[in-house]
């Protein structure tokens, strides 16, 4: 036994030795440290839109133009891209990988390239999109859609959403709608349009005053305040069917309703018990709880995306200011400390910012602030700007502005850049709200 174990011992020793000796050079050839690679600035990617190709059948200028226009608008607003339509002569002009010459696009200074092709037959249109990284010669996204001619814009928006997803990891909001209040009929009715101002549809037709639309989290329902029965009551409407239900019946103001992220509850300012206070209702209108209770005005509740907190406006210290409370009404603290008059808070879907507006020199300007009260940042400066509402990806903010004289719907990036007028025509449009993804 002893001899045996001695043999084994020798074996083990030698094995260990061999292991140690063999392993050492392996380690040493491995990577030894880190060097920092850093560069200044934040560059925009050069995004080129290739002329849409007719894959078979005739050329259709309308479709081709729509593809380019929509991409240009979406991608320019997006932010990370500088969009162009460079004139590049290609020896082969296919749209599939390998069917065209990437080098000529690279020579034109392009980083990203959108190739598209369409087939029009009768009313039906089939469009194929491909996004390429010109430098690495890789295809980043590819989709084909078939629809009617009316769908072309939405189809292009859909691929824009895909591009954002491929490039940033977060889907774009370009297929979303914006609901808003317009005085087109000289009353205040609620309308719906594409986020870029196209395809305007009228939602309410009651000839009265309709205010403050807000989408349910699934985008299928809209709540708003309407004077249609005299008193400003809250209504809920199913967009697809047009069915409408009255949510509140109590007299007094029932305004600034906000759907909870769970889609089952509504936070609402009601004055049924004397003055405007914030209540929690089921979406059918049953009162679940009263969240504020004092002599001051409390309006404009705004849910945090995790539904744990609600920002709101109160004038308990004299002038309206933004406060935050837990969603059971406890733990109230003041959010805005600078500016005499701050209203209209809205929590970013990413949870990291709250947009609100501040009265400044006779008008309003939009700010964002961190929920802990730091990072107060002014986003707008021109004209009077109100009613900020986030896009579902938290990248953009829709708002209303009087900078052009008449009040209109605008959109901008969440850092205040890229402010663009969306609503067109001679109406006065206000209270925009960006829909969730459908």
């Amino acid at each position, binding site marked *: 036994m002893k001899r045996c174990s001695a043999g084994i011992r020798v074996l083990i020793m030698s094995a260990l030795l061999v292991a140690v000796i063999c392993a050492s050079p392996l380690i040493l*050839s491995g*990577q030894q440290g880190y060097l920092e690679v850093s*560069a200044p600035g934040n560059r925009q990617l050069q995004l080129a839109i290739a002329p849409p190709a007719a894959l078979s059948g005739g050329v259709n200028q309308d479709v081709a133009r729509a593809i380019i226009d929509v991409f240009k608008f979406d991608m320019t607003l997006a932010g990370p891209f500088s969009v162009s339509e460079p004139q590049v002569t290609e020896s082969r002009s296919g749209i599939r990988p390998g069917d065209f010459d990437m080098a000529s696009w690279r020579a034109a200074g392009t980083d990203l390239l959108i190739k598209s092709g369409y087939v029009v037959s009768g009313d039906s249109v089939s469009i194929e999109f491909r996004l390429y990284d010109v430098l690495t010669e890789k295809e980043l996204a590819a989709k084909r859609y078939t629809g009617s001619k009316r769908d072309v814009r939405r189809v292009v928006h859909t691929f824009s959403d895909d591009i954002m997803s491929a490039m940033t990891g977060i889907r774009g909001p370009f297929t979303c709608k914006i609901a808003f209040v317009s005085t087109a009929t000289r009353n205040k009715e609620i309308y719906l349009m594409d986020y870029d101002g196209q395809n305007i549809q009228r939602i309410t037709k009651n000839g009265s005053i309709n205010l403050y639309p807000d989408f349910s989290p699934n985008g299928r329902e809209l709540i708003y305040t309407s004077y249609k029965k005299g008193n400003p009551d809250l209504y809920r409407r199913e967009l697809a069917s047009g069915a409408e239900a009255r949510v509140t019946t109590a007299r007094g103001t029932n305004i600034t309703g906000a759907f909870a992220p769970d889609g089952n509850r509504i936070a609402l300012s009601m004055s049924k018990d004397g003055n405007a206070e914030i209540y929690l209702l089921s979406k059918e209108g049953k009162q679940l709880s009263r969240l504020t209770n004092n002599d001051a005005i409390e309006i404009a509740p705004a849910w945090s995306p995790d539904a744990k907190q609600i920002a709101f406006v109160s004038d308990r210290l004299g002038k309206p200011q933004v406060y935050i409370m837990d969603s059971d009404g406890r733990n109230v603290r003041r959010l805005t400390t600078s500016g005499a008059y701050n209203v209209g808070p809205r929590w970013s879907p990413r949870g990291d910012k709250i947009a609100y507006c501040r009265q400044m020199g006779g008008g309003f300007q939009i700010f964002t602030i961190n929920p802990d009260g730091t990072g107060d940042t002014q986003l707008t400066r021109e004209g009077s700007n109100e009613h900020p509402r986030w896009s579902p990806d938290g990248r953009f903010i829709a708002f209303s502005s009087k900078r052009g004289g008449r009040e209109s719907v605008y959109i901008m990036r969440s850092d205040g850049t890229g402010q663009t007028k969306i609503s067109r025509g001679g109406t006065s449009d206000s209270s925009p709200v960006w829909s969730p993804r459908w």
Partner: protein
Amino acid sequence: MNPSVKRNDKGLLPTLPVSLIFHLAIYGLFAWFHFFPSAPVTEAPVYYVDVVNLPVASPQQGSPSAAGTAPSPPPAVKPPAPEMKLPAKESGQKPAGKPAKAATTPTRTAEESSKEFEDRLARLQQSSDARHEAAAMDAIRKKAAVRGKGQAGIPGGTGHESGSDYASYIRSRLVDAFKTTIAYQDKTPRMTVILTIDKNGRVLKRRTESSTGDRLFEDAVNRAIVKAEREFRPPPNGGSFEYGFIFTAQGVGKQ
């Protein structure tokens, strides 16, 4: 009790050499790594050390994510110690100091309050100075940690691995390429990539060790590598080369 003790004694004996060998082996490993004395200390790798890379607000205008970070003002520059000789010394400190004096001297009338004010100001200044000093020191330490590893080199190298000079050469290629590709959307993007470069100077392997998850930034890093690769010279000694590179956006994430 007794019998068991005896048996244990007997049992420990044979394991002793094994343990000895093992300890020796471990010691050997450590020695090889860190304390090998006869290191053929080749010439100290040439490093130009930018002393402190103090945070700077992103100068980029109009580009959306940059503008997002711009509003946070760069902290007033305050050199942590005189021997640091920061170029920003004059511009940063004097303006902070002068107005303070100017503000306090004329208000001698109300001595109590002015003194109080002065005290508070001094305290404030002190605390903010301390903060900046800490930040600067931190930055240096971080740098040193990063550099140190590279600088330590591989004494007793077998010739198989390449020296750190090649690493800084690769770094300079990457920096140049990265300047033309950098883009990000998060506030403090950071990505650590281990590059393996074969004996022809091609990128054989590229693995992401860690990333803050900013897709736009990751793409920019990948583009930089693809761009830089075209200019890589083969590693010295005809071997392959592996090294880690930490990509960051300049002027952000250093606070």
